[in-house]
């Protein structure tokens, strides 16, 4: 297979499909067992220094912030991060010094809210390294290749661009048309943190609204930490099996964490906490500001419940629920 072009980006999270099949066979139990644990246990068991981690959701939507805070709290080092429309999650992790490298589809920004002062500072000073570039669909399909147990998946994006030059993709001639086609290497994160509205204690999880990349990501990642707004009964899961997006045997830890996406949005449940995000963007303009913020909201609180109290408690959370539900009071 003649390679017409080859990106110089680092090949992150790739495994020989045979090697990964062996890993799956040895490490992913098909046993229906109770996987409930605290976020502390989940992170200490499944997230190690140097791991390659990916966060579910998209931008500030449906993100396991409870998992992100815990990784910072436990002081993980040398992580590689999937910058798949990574915004608040990546920004905090990078600011906290947990992240050594990042593969970037989208990072260092908060969409409409502007660029991220903290993570830009880290990347522009070389404290966080960009290991490779990719696009959103590129990441999506790298996860698809991994989910399918393939070494690569073809695509027609990236071609002709510097994004391809700095990616880990390769270009070959399609044997049918003869035209150049991009091959995206599979991407198996070591751990994915995915926040869902509900699941049972085994990890059978439902989602509301768009799935974004999480169907494929949950199947691509070697370990899945599921944080959930609520744990529901196995009977409820089994009464609507077509709603299960992630079946239990893909899941390694189940952590009940209401409001676990805060300050990000949880569709149909609560809206972005713009005030909190704005505060971070403001305070993280200096190293000291970022550190003080992390001290205040992560290191300085006992657990996630204490964090929720600190950001405004039930009053604030109720307001975010009203905004999400389009109540007239809206106008944050």
């Amino acid at each position, binding site marked *: 297979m003649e390679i017409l072009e080859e990106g110089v980006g680092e090949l992150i999270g790739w495994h020989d499909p045979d090697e990964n099949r062996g890993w799956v066979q040895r490490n992913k139990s098909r046993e229906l067992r109770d996987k409930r644990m605290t976020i502390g246990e989940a992170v200490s068991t499944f997230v190690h220094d140097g791991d390659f981690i990916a966060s579910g959701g998209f931008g500030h939507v449906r993100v396991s912030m409870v998992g992100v805070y815990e990784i910072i709290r436990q002081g993980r080092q040398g992580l590689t991060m999937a910058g798949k429309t990574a915004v608040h999650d990546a920004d905090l992790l990078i600011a906290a010094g947990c992240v050594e490298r990042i593969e970037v589809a989208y990072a260092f920004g908060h969409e409409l809210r502007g660029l991220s002062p903290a993570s830009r500072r880290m990347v522009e000073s070389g404290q966080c390294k960009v290991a490779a570039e990719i696009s959103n669909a590129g990441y999506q399909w790298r996860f698809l290749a991994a989910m399918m147990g393939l070494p690569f998946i073809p695509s027609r994006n990236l071609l002709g661009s510097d994004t391809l030059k700095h990616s880990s993709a390769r270009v070959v001639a399609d044997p049918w048309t003869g035209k150049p086609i991009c091959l995206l290497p599979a991407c198996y994160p070591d751990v994915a943190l995915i926040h869902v509205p509900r699941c049972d204690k085994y990890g059978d999880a439902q989602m509301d609204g768009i799935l974004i990349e999480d169907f494929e990501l949950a199947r691509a990642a070697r370990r899945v930490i599921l944080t959930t707004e609520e744990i529901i009964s196995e009977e409820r899961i089994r009464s609507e099996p077509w709603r*299960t997006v992630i079946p239990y045997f893909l899941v390694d830890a189940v952590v009940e964490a209401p409001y676990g996406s805060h300050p990000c949005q949880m569709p149909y449940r609560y809206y972005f906490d713009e005030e909190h995000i704005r505060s971070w963007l403001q305070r993280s303009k200096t190293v000291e500001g970022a550190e003080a913020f992390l001290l205040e909201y992560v290191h300085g609180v006992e657990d996630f419940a204490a964090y929720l109290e600190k950001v405004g408690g039930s009053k604030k959370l109720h307001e975010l629920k009203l905004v999400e539900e389009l109540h007239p009071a809206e106008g944050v």
Partner: protein
Amino acid sequence: METGLDYSPTVLLACIAARLLEDKKSVFVGTGLPMIAAMLAQRTHAPGLLIIFEAGGIGPRIPVLPISVGDSRTFYQANAASSMHDVMSLSQAGYLDYGFLGAAQIDRYGNINTTVIGPYHAPVVRLPGSGGANDLGSFCHRTIVIMRQDQRKFVERVEYVTTPGYLSGPGARERAGLPAGSGPYRVITQLGVYGFDEATRQIELLSLHPGVTLQQVQEASAMDIRSAGDLATSAPPTAEEMAILKEIDPTGLILE
């Protein structure tokens, strides 16, 4: 076949197939005997066996014997009612431990034909083709074949390789690009149970069913078959197994 025993041959096959399945592992099943075997295993030694169907059913509580692989009984109160893309992908990615296959013909290396008897372009019998068999036989870590054995079916070389066994011998699957370490694990017929020699990848007789002789096996094979050093006799169905099978298939749809 008249065995003179108090169980039918298919009951024995179901029991033997069930016993091969391990608890807390996954199995890719089709309809018929494999489904019965998987259900029996769940109700005996393997309550944690995860049953998956190629059309998308994952972990159902099978209420009554399904007739089709896409039948709503295959996703009744399931962990997930998903899609073929999902379960075939999971399978290709290594999440499926066991897979069951049928065969019109099998050969020394466990290659299977379910496509055609006679010349490809002028078939004597045109069979249904691969269906999901090639996929299961390529992806599952261990494939179990259940079939009737006779001289037309147990052959030196199948006329057509619908589903790959060990192809031409040791290393051939890997050289062809098939997933490492996968391949045929057992063949269960009305006469005995066969495995595949680790070194030669050739079929070998592991056990004879009660009342069956080596000569019967040879007479029902158009290939020479080695016997394993410690040739065993298949354990007959227990009373418990037979009672459960009666519950699973009360009308004898499959078991007779």
